[in-house]
């Protein structure tokens, strides 16, 4: 079993680690530099490759759009689900299941699908024989890390917890506050504790000391420290961790009313509940109407990406705010304390620890966070870039995962290949595809000498490319429509004009994809390639 860290490696492990750190960045740069060189030396061959790639991209876009639509439909059909009713039903599974089987499926299509899915899940649970604990003994531990967020950012999150359909008295809230946080920040947290203490099981404040040995200045170190304290607290209260679901949120996370009901349901319905993470759909609605267009489009894109990923649970990895079994968290040793991408790293750490017998369950319920917004337009763009780069730093998992796979004899080879390919290909595509489409694809035409410019291909290629991009527009249109459907209802001035403006912002996708998605990803991979590990930088969030 490997230690899920790049620290204190020696010999072969160190060499392997460096090799796999270099590989994604080297591949991305080889593609980005190799294509122009190929376009210069063999323009026809390069143009053929580009057409083949564009066609692949188009079909993949259609493929993803199809599953985006399906996932969106699933999200919309689960909006009306009474999760707590289902939770209570699971407390008495057999009679409940019988009632489910006897009741006629509703005429409403959405409810029909929802019920059908639920029935299947309940049947699978019964067949597994691994019954859940009674719902009244299931507790939730919610950790909010705080570094420099003010009370106005933090409070909506705990407010949303207080109004859950799930009994808030079985929710333990922990504020994981960095020691280096300012006095104002700490004061804000203290005030919140005072205000909400009675609404929950408890509201704890755990101050994470700076400079603990072996820790980097990362969120994972903070939340792990807090989780340890919380685990000790729960032990004192005689609450077994097998009955605790831990949710690690961001400081600005606001959950929907059904969130914990839905989470409890999924915890109970999953036979392997203590070897599972739960991934909701992140949306960025806290300040979506006020945020700048470029940032908004990117974050909606992230939500869509998660929606698509939710349709592929065998390859799903945790991202951003997520939940998992308390016992699993303790068993795997909490979040990594020296990695920036703690959200995805905890999944890989658990996957390796349980030797492939760990998965992520997608939850069709949303939780909301802030779009990056920092006062001026330029500052916002800079912050968005940094945030995306931090997300792309998830590539740091690749060498750890690969070393883990090489060491493991029990994880099936097909799974290793599938996971490693997805991880590798995903990061390389992130860094290269927008640049290939926006820039590199046009290079053969620029370098065209007489040899190329006298050919039919020289005239056909732009036409084919134009057709491909026109067809891709259909996918963009679908995305625009779905994004409008996903928007929160809000009392804004000129809502129709706002919506039209929001729709038109999607035309910025080529720009944002290139400069605020691909470039940060390339930046992150290049840093990893050269061993320039990133310091954690807390995203500036502000609300008007």
């Amino acid at each position, binding site marked *: 079993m490997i230690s899920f860290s790049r620290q204190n490696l020696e010999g072969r492990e160190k060499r392997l680690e460096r090799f796999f750190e270099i590989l994604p960045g080297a591949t991305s740069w080889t593609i980005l530099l190799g294509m122009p060189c190929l376009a210069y030396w063999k323009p026809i061959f390069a143009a053929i490759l580009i057409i083949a790639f564009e066609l692949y991209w188009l079909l993949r876009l259609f493929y993803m759009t199809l*599953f985006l639509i399906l996932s969106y439909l699933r999200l919309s059909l689960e909006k009306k689900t009474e999760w707590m009713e289902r939770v209570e039903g699971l407390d008495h599974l057999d009679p409940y299941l019988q009632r489910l089987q006897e009741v006629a499926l509703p005429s409403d299509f959405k409810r029909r699908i929802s019920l059908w899915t639920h029935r299947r899940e309940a049947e699978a649970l019964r067949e597994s024989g691994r019954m859940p604990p009674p719902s009244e003994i299931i507790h939730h531990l919610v950790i909010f890390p705080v570094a420099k967020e003010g009370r106005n950012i933090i409070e909506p999150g705990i407010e949303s917890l207080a109004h859950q359909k799930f009994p808030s008295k079985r929710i333990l809230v922990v504020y994981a506050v960095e020691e280096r946080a300012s006095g104002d920040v700490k004061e804000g947290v203290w005030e919140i504790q005072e205000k909400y203490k009675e609404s929950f099981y408890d509201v704890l404040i755990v101050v994470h000391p700076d400079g603990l040995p072996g820790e980097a200045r990362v969120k994972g170190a903070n939340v792990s420290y807090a989780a340890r304290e919380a685990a000790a607290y729960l032990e004192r209260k005689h609450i077994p961790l097998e009955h605790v679901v831990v949710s690690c949120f961001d400081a600005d996370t606001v959950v929907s009313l059904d969130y914990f009901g839905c989470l409890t349901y999924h915890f109970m319905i999953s036979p392997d509940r203590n070897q599972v993470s739960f991934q909701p759909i992140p949306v960025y609605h806290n300040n979506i109407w006020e945020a700048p267009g470029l940032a908004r489009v990117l974050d909606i894109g992230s939500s869509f990406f998660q929606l698509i990923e939710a349709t592929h649970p065998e390859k799903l990895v945790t991202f951003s705010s997520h939940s998992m079994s308390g016992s699993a968290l303790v068993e795997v040793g909490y979040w990594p304390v020296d990695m920036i991408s703690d959200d995805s790293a905890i999944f890989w750490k658990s996957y390796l620890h349980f030797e492939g017998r760990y998965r992520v369950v997608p939850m069709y319920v949303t939780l909301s966070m802030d779009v990056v917004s920092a006062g001026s337009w330029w500052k916002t763009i800079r912050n968005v870039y940094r945030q995306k780069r931090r997300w792309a730093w998830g590539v740091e998992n690749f060498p750890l995962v690969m070393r883990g796979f090489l060491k493991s004899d029990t994880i099936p080879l097909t799974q290793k290949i599938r996971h490693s390919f997805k991880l590798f290909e995903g990061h390389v595509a992130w860094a290269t595809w927008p640049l290939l489409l926006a820039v590199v694809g046009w290079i053969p035409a*620029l370098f065209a000498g007489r040899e190329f410019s006298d050919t039919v291909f020289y005239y056909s290629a732009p036409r084919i490319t134009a057709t491909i991009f026109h067809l891709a527009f259909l996918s963009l249109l679908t995305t625009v429509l779905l994004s409008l459907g996903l928007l929160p209802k809000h009392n804004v001035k000129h809502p129709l004009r706002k919506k039209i403006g929001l729709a038109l912002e999607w035309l910025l996708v080529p720009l944002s994809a290139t400069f605020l998605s691909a470039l940060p990803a390339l930046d992150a991979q290049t840093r990893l390639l050269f061993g320039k590990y990133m310091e954690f930088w807390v995203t500036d969030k502000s609300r008007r």
Partner: protein
Amino acid sequence: MLVLRKIVFYFFVIIYLILCPLTILYALGYLFRPGTGEGIVKTGLIDLSTAPPGASVYIGKSRYTEKTPTTLRSLLPGEYPVKLILKHHIPWTQTVPVEAEKATVLEKILLLPTAFKHEELLSGPFQDLIPLPGNHFFLLVQGPDLEDLYVYDWKEQKGRPLLSSDSPFQGAKVLSHMTVEESPALLVRVELKRGEKFLWVTLSNEETVIEDLTSLFPEKPLWIEWEGRDRNQLFVFQRGSLNRLEIVSKAIYPKIVSSVRGYGLANKAIYVLRNDNTFERVDQAGKGTERFPQNPSLSDSLSSVRGFLKIKSLSSDTFLFWGERGELLLNRPPYQFVRSGVTGFEIFPQTGRLLLWQKNRLGILDVSEERQREEKIQEGQEPLWIFRKGDKIEQAFWVYDGSHILFRDREGVFLIELETYGKPKLYALLRVRKNSAIFYSEESGKLYFLSVEGDLSSVELLPREKILQFPFPERKEGKKKSEIQKL
């Protein structure tokens, strides 16, 4: 969902595996023709662009759905009679060959109006027109004196007399003048009651500035040169040496270079051919000599040429030598390519092509480095003579990015189309006043001339505002040159 996903995934894989090769084959010009026994056939295309655009395209008797600019695709190899028809324009016809997997490109087709619309710019009568190449002025001559000259700004479409009414040079008779490409100044030799004078005339939008440089010319020079953008220095060839003259300070720097039999200016340097046929570059003070490698073939060619040679720079390492008897030589193959009679030439810098003319013929020589690399150019190889039936060709211009040539043969003005797979087409455009020059501006696309009555007029050859500009560099021409036949 997993099952659905797998089904959809494999479906898309199959689609891709089918579509991708088909798309690439289509892009390469392959066409699938089931049932004809041919199966997959290789096709070519014809790409047509006209100025002005919007011409109807006919292949034989069939009319194509799109208008120019357009691309005719999926054509089987062979010859296609193409006809382009645009209202009020002369129909354009040509038999165009199509090769498999190749594009036949005709992208600079100029459709000429059936009747040119003459625009009268200035009422004359004028006797002559003096072009100032590279500027937006030219001069109009109404009589023999300096005050009979008019400055016409073709951009602003305004004319004014060269001299102000109180100019001290009123009554000066013009003996000769000299202009240089891109220079807004000209050197005029005039005769006044008190003797001959050399005047430096600088033109601008608002006024004419005239400086008397007579003191800088103690004797009549054999040749004078200056760089277009340099308004302060002249280089004068006299008695086998070069003198540098500074206009502002009225200073003479004599014999900055000696033993000279030819020279030219470019990029603030002087390119000098010595009496011993060594070719050098010196700075404007005559120092910092940098000798070009001695080439026996060039030396031999230069030795056969007598007299003074003007040197023109075509690129940083390619130079043209123009002898007194109209000899033309290059400092690389083919070295001497015209033995005599060249009365003028025009360089088309973008393609490195040289247009030259003698009294009765027009020729083109490709001196680009690309051509040098691709073809082994023989020493003494002659230019391609595209027109041989001239009488007294005095001016010629590149038109429409080098795809056409406009030339004046005595009073006739003609246009030759080079963009052709057959015989180059010759169009007679108009007649101008006897012994008057013409001026063509590629920038405006207009030809400026004096009508037979002596009025300044213009016709639009190239409808500039209707021609689309594309961001990609122009494709390099080459294929059609070998098929140009002589007229």
